């Protein structure tokens, strides 16, 4: 039997192809990004004809999958939790309209957060939309729940949400492959405008229908003992029980087993937190004097347990209200509860190592742009040319421009542009001409930049917008952008010109520059500055174009430059403060700046930035 060590996202992909899912759409976002590429890998190896696409954003991904579903095909859309915010309008509405072929929304949560702007809990989004949500504890379960979700969706004609958290998506587990067959279903669209184009009057009827479906699904979940179960011994009562689900379930089971406490502290696992298996929960709670709820990342189960006097969790102060529930934290939670209840505690965690670490003064490692990153060159030029500007920015690797003092704001996808126009109008109202430079990546621009840009131009805002075009979606793992004309499965698509898209938004000033040439980049910014304040001026767009070094390893630096630091270096630290290349460091022995050859990309940009001209190119020949 074929067995592979799959990433959780790979296990989800396997679940999708095993369940005959015919359409899979996605917009990349950590921790969900690898699902679609893993689907593509399986589609190719198993010679399937599954339709896959990188959509321009999550709402687009959702709607495409939804349409496929109502033709009777099984469809899924994949995104990260904040991506579901972008698709929230579609989610809420589709809950009423329903599904025909199974429709699975995979929304990956990021407790921590490791790579997100919030720690929001997708289970609450599902509850808000009134659609079922499944919460896997490990990759294997996630893979099974994909099939379950599609079946429930089809049986009850309702979209279903799968919420894998980061420790499922980015866990690795050995998974045995099942049977994979091509799904031969053909699309049929039954016109039914009272459903698919329902007006408010019909929406009320559909809402009633949805509520009935939820009651039925709730009944089904009560008996779904593979994913909702407890280990109470009949006729026994317990001082404490634990209610949990998702990743914390796995953590709890490991700890109780390691500590030999599995039999005296029963656990109720909830794999389907909504609709909530209320009877099962009541049965469990009634056998326990107190129940501790351990869930990520919010308080859904905790709210849904009815016997409020028994419930311990976030609301009682026993579980932290923010941050990831890693094993060490869960261990601490359990001990606090056990002590509060006068029960025997677990072995104390040894804190000596943590204390020792505090005395070691280890270097703080903040994430930084890679050596040779073209964004660094662009940010350097921006900050140098417009030092007093407000720098609005966006979601992507380039948020790390904050380290170079060239990023002041980061709200959500597309907000570099919308906040720039907001800043402009707020200051303009006071008669203040505030310099504003917005930075946004190419993929983010296609995701949600155009509406904001069009709005800014239409409403007469004035600012410089630098589109950092590195010809890829770098942060999430090098997915192609629409401007490349490469589709999710590697086939050729129509390349969308960034220049034409910008011009289409009504922008009259567009310059394309390679930021590696700091001088040209600086000149372009000066020209743009002038345009912004001209009577007929408006939004000036600079497309700062240079390929990402990770995505284009062999082409990004056509002429490698060997650079060194000469004795002219006065150790002023300007290069480290303003350029922040990880390859530049202060050499204690030399008493000046030096270059770490192990990580230097040989881009040669730093030669242009030293005020003393002390960083020089070495003639190799």
């Amino acid at each position: 039997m074929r067995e592979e060590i799959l990433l959780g996202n790979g296990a989800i992909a396997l679940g999708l192809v095993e369940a005959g899912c015919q359409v899979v759409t996605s917009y990349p976002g950590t921790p969900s990004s690898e699902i679609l590429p893993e689907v593509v890998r399986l589609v190719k190896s198993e010679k399937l004809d599954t339709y896959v696409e990188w959509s321009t954003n999550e709402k687009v991904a959702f709607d495409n999958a939804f349409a496929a579903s109502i033709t009777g095909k099984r469809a899924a859309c994949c995104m990260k939790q904040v991506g579901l915010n972008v698709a929230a309008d579609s989610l809420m509405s589709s809950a009423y309209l329903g599904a025909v072929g199974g429709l699975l929304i995979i929304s990956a949560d990021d407790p921590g957060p490791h790579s997100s702007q919030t720690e929001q809990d997708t289970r609450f989004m599902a509850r808000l939309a009134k659609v079922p949500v499944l919460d896997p504890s490990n990759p294997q379960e996630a893979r099974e729940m994909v099939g379950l979700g599609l079946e429930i969706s089809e049986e009850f004609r309702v979209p279903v949400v799968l919420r894998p958290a980061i420790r499922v998506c980015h866990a690795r587990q050995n998974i045995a492959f099942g049977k994979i067959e091509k799904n031969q279903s053909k699309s049929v669209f039954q016109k039914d405008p009272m459903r698919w184009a329902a007006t408010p009057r019909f929406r009320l009827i559909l809402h009633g229908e949805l509520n009935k479906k939820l009651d039925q699904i709730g009944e089904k979940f009560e008996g779904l003992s593979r994913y909702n179960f407890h280990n109470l011994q009949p006729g026994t009562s317990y001082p404490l029980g634990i209610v949990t689900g998702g990743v914390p379930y796995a953590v709890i089971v490991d700890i109780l087993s390691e500590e030999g406490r599995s039999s005296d502290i029963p656990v109720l696992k909830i794999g389907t937190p909504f609709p909530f298996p209320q009877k099962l929960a009541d049965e469990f709670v009634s056998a326990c004097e107190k129940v501790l709820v351990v869930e990520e990342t919010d308080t859904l189960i905790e709210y849904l347990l009815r016997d409020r006097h028994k419930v311990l969790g976030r609301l009682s102060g026993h579980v932290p209200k923010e941050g990831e529930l890693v094993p060490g934290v869960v261990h601490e939670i359990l001990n606090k509860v056990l002590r509060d209840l006068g029960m025997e505690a677990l072995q104390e965690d040894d804190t000596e190592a943590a204390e020792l670490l505090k005395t070691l003064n280890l270097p703080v490692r903040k994430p930084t742009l890679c050596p040779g990153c073209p964004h660094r060159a662009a940010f350097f030029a921006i900050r140098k040319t417009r030092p007093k500007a407000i720098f609005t920015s966006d979601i992507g690797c380039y948020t790390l421009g904050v380290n170079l003092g060239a990023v002041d704001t980061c709200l959500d996808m597309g907000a570099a542009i919308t906040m720039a126009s907001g800043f402009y109008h707020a200051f303009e109202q006071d008669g203040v001409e505030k310099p504003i430079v917005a930075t946004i990546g190419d993929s983010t621009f296609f995701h949600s930049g155009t509406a904001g840009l069009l709005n800014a131009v239409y409403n007469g805002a004035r600012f410089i917008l630098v589109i950092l075009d590195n010809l890829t979606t770098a942060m999430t793992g090098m997915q192609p952008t629409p401007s490349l004309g490469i589709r999710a499965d590697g086939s050729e698509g129509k390349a969308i010109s960034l220049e034409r898209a910008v011009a289409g938004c009504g922008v009259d000033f567009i310059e394309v520059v390679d930021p590696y040439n700091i001088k040209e980049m600086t000149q372009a910014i000066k020209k743009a500055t002038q345009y912004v304040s001209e009577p007929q001026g408006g939004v000036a767009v600079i497309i700062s174009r240079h390929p990402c070094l990770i995505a284009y390893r062999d082409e990004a630096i056509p002429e490698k430059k060997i650079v060194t630091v000469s004795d002219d270096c006065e150790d002023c630290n300007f290069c480290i403060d303003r350029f922040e290349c990880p390859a530049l460091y202060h050499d204690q022995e030399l008493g000046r700046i030096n270059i770490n050859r192990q990580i230097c990309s040989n881009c040669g940009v730093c030669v242009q930035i030293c005020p003393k001209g002390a960083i020089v190119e070495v003639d190799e020949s």
Partner: protein
Amino acid sequence: MDSVDIVLCGLGGQGILFMTRVIAQAALDKGLNIMGAETHGMAQRGGSVVSHLRLGQAQGSLVRTGSAHFLLGLDENEAYRNLPFLAKGASMYVNADPKNFPRQEVRDFLAKRNVTYHAIPAGNIAMALSAPQSSNLALLGYFSAFSEGPVSKGEFVATIERLSPERYREKNLEIFEAGLSRGLEEKGA
């Protein structure tokens, strides 16, 4: 739970994920179950990278503090940062200058916990073989010399052969062997 827990750490770009894959695949080939946790996304950009690997019976993907049997560090400071994961009697293998490893402040802590430690200048070895990015394989070879954990040297070699992209295969094995002989010398001495 009955699992061998390993924490692998270093910096972005040092090849932590590949090293993890080699160990995991080799263990799976021996019939062990695999559970692991990786770092992706923003955290990868130049920051600390940690990978957890649990071989055997484990439900969760993260190693609990105080329970790792092995710590493999591609960066000395990152190895220190992950000290809290070490169990009593654990072993650590670190890419560092053997003459100066570990820092004085850490010695007592390791002694008290019966933690054995081994240091190899894996970065220099890889550099000398003109593959500066491959310190991961030197460290893995070095680790394999001490025959700790469920995977043998031969099994590592076979797995590296299988998982390496063709154009790096020979180089990867060469660097692994260099780390291995370094470890064998030390063990013999």
